[in-house]
């Protein structure tokens, strides 16, 4: 082995160490900790998949299509899933009953105005002093929902129910449910971006996949192109993870892009609204305890990078299959979770 070769192996030693607990799965069965058994199960599953899918290729075993973009080739899958999607009743005047959204009105003034009969901002539009400002706010909520979102952002925490109410003013097909799969947690490549656009009875599911790392930029761009400026993004922990991560990977390739869409991070609502009823707020736990979803074969998130690497190294689509399913299920669960949160927060007995 050459000197550089040996150093490269030394540098990559960390990766070897983290892989070890996995590929040796079968020898570790005697260890009984749940984590170990999960890893060894995942290790066996990978071996099985590699066998099952040997001699196949990705495009023949999935519905992915190869797309050509200005930034090179990438894969795209579109699927129509029959599934209802519900948003809060937009006629509810609850948000606009908060007169404090009008700049200059504080709690004391609000109390006075309410006593005078001004129950909502809509009542205020003809008010001599506040009319003009009230009309501006009203307009935001009618035509410029991003502006309305930003107005709420100034006063409310991201888990405030007002944001759930606000989402009721959006069309269903303006919802963009987003979940990504990456090779790590800081600045490693992202290889799969899931995006779901709900409709009345169907959800349009997109999966944007980098066949290999050289397609990452094309995949990111293709994803961004499917996101409309007026969309409202719905994620689980996407405020902290998915969205900044996408922005960062684009910046890595010198592409400056900021996703300043209205954004409902359901993780924040879940923690606040459902947190006390569950053991923890991992999406898997919420699925089982609240949504009643039972995944028959789910890949632990921590195994995702390893499976993608196995897919790349073996040129075998097998290990990719559970990642795609995992990502797809995450998107669908988010639609259910959104419905559940609305029920709890807006229609509850509070």
């Amino acid at each position, binding site marked *: 082995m050459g000197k550089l070769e040996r150093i*490269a192996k030394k*540098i990559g030693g960390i990766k070897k160490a983290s892989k070890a607990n996995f590929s040796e799965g079968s020898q570790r069965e005697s260890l009984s900790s749940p984590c170990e058994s999960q890893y060894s199960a995942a290790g066996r599953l990978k071996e099985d998949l590699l066998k099952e899918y040997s001699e196949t290729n990705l495009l023949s075993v999935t519905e992915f299509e190869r797309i050509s973009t200005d930034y090179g080739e990438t894969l795209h899958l579109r699927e129509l899933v029959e599934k209802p999607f519900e948003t809060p009743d937009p006629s509810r005047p609850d948000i606009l009953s908060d007169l404090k959204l009008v700049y200059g009105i504080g709690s004391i003034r609000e109390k006075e105005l309410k006593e005078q009969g001004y129950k909502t901002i809509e009542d205020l539009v003809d008010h001599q002093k506040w009319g003009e400002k009230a009309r501006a706010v009203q307009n935001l909520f009618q035509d410029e929902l991003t502006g309305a979102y930003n107005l709420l952002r100034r006063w409310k925490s991201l888990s405030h129910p007002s944001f759930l109410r606000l989402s009721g003013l959006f069309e269903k097909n303006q919802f963009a449910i987003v979940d990504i799969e990456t090779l790590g947690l*800081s*600045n490693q490549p992202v290889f799969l971006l899931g995006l779901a656009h709900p409709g009345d009875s169907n959800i349009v599911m997109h999966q944007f996949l980098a066949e290999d790392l050289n397609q990452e930029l094309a995949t990111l761009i293709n994803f961004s192109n499917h996101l409309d400026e007026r969309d409202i993004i719905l994620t689980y922990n996407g405020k902290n993870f998915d969205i900044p991560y996408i922005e960062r990977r684009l910046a890595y390739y*010198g592409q400056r892009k900021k996703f300043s869409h209205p954004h409902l991070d359901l993780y924040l609502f879940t923690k606040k609204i459902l947190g006390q009823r569950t053991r923890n707020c991992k999406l898997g736990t919420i699925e089982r305890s609240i949504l009643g979803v039972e995944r028959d074969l789910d890949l632990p998130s921590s195994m995702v990078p390893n499976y993608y690497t196995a897919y790349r190294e073996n040129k075998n689509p097998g290990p990719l299959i559970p990642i795609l399913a995992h990502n797809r299920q995450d998107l669908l669960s988010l639609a259910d979770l959104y419905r559940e949160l609305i029920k709890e927060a807006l229609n509850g007995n509070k």
Partner: protein
Amino acid sequence: MEISKIVESLKKQNWYEGQIEHTELLPERKAEYGKANYDGRINDFLERRGIDLFSHQSQAINHIAEGKNVIITTPTASGKTLAFNIPVFDRMLKDPDSRALYIYPTKALSQDQLETIKEMEQELQLDLNPGVYDGDTPRSARPGIRRDSRIILTNPYGLHHYLEWHHKWRDFFSKLEYVVMDEVHSYRGVFGSNVAMLVRRMKRIFGHYDSDPQFVLSSATIANPLDHAKKLVGEDFSLVSDDSSFRGRKSFLFWNPLTNPDNSPHNQTSKLMAYFVNSGLQTLCFTLSRRLAELIAEWSSNRTEAPVKSYRAGYRPEERRELERELRTGEIRGISATNALELGVDIGGLDAVIISGYPGTITSSWQQAGRAGRGREDSLVVLVGFENPLDQFFLKHPREFFDRDHERAILDLSNPNITMGHLTCAATELPIREDEYLGQKYSEELKVLLENELLQDTPNGAVFAETYRPSESVRLDNIDETTIKILHNGKLLETMDKAQAYREAHENATLLHQGKTYIVKEFDLEQGVAEVKWKEVDYFTQAISESSLEINDRFSKEEVEDVGVWFGNVSVSEVYSHYKEKKYDRVLDVHPLDLPPLEFDTECSWFRVPEQILVQVEEKGLGPRGGLHAIEHAVISLTPFYAMCDRWDIGGFSSRNPLEEGGTIFIYDAYEGGIGIAEEVYDLLSELLERTYELIVGCDCEEGCPSCIYSPKCGNDNDPLDKEAAIYILEKLGERFGY
């Protein structure tokens, strides 16, 4: 009182037994002044403060204004900070968009300099929001600093991690006009080479945001400032090195404590400290260890009216700030410190400096000596030599000290052990394009990284293709990051690293902190916590360790006749087996210690000297172990010139093997996992031994000296050493290696 009179009456003290071996008088020097161009508001500021710029300052300011990269190497307290702050502030005044990045080697220095910058900002009525951005900066404060601070102060360790978040720094980086790097002499050897690679990664990102900042460096005096700056940054520099500030007369005394064997060197150091303080001199004593800094303070305080304070790493920042302030105002009359006070912490000049034990380099010695002297006043420096051959050599040969060149700072940008790790970091920051330079082309290295699938080629360049964070696996230095917290009644008293905790925070150790003695009640290594109780006792503890080396793996072997040469992997360990209770230098008791060894695995090359040679050495009445030990030292002293590293990056070990198996000399990398130096030694051993032979045989000294076989960092106090035996062994090796 005049310095000369104080020295005269020192000689009349009853403990004076002719310790002063030598007095060097450094003459007074008149200041020279110069003019520079800058904004009128800066002129007003200087006038208000009554500052006339020295000519080296104005030279630096003018160079910087002309757009040149500058390195300033004038001594401590010559006004370096002002020399680079003026042009930076001048630009800030003229161009309200401009930004500057200040990089200091330690967090403590950034905090200290922030104060200086804030003062200047206020006086100039600028609104720069200067801010420190490092590991201690709360997460919530970071976006604000990146957005609003026009001057950001940080350190290389932080930058190493921040660079991959460069898009958040877009605004700051794209407006960056100056990068100021202070104390760049500390960026040498492996650490320095890592920083040099970090600078290349930084510049790559600056280029990505279309900025091309000017670099301003400052350094202690080193032998090769221009060459060092160029290698560190990868650009040409102008040098400002002639100190033109006023210097009063300085008396430099060499003090040999051995002439009074009734008083230990440390005891004499405290007596000197107390004597100077009582004579009205504000005195700073540099010690070689944290513990000695505390002990000297404690022992001197018994003889002074106001207590002598101590200063060292590990104190809480607010404690340090307070001590620095009291030093500046003169409230503190005496302080004993580790080299934590050697770097550019602003404490003003003192009347006297005691250097208790040669600090290992000429550069450090002069940095410490430079703390003595305020303006035109006379000042005094005393070097207290210890009882080891190196210190004693300098005491006996003062010219060897005063005429000796400063050390060279050596960097290596072609050691793949260093560069390849940084290439993976760079590929995480921005894809690496094929034609891209990181100071130089690393085509081979990139190829191997691609082949090993750490990187993957894409149309946009080589992309990091792994699942871990390279900046977490690439370390800039070999300092153990484990921090042990010392708790007193549940409150944080101080922090220290693991090796220090082994020495000072084991169970029942006495821990000295600002003149108070604490006893360690519990040392929990796993939690990284030691609990102490305040208890005044009249003894202190000293942990005793032994180092050993074990071969794990042999990668290659060569035989030169009957001399075996190996390259492989070894474990170097330090076992703390017992500790002593001492009162001054008297051992009261010895107790066993139960601590796991401090251990690290590294790469090593070693060779075996055949038994028959050692037998011949013995027959000549010479010492085989002293000979092997001497060769080990001399090889280590020459290695930096072959492996482009610092002497402190390498360790050595030599032993005469049992069962008449000859003797072995080991040279290993002082870095976990190895860093390529020992491998170089293996490849070049024959040449290295030849040079070693020439060095020792050609040295005029009689029994050894710092130029040949004395090591400034020997764990055995340079004992035993046998120059003649070393020459004999090297001659015999020469017959086999053919030199």
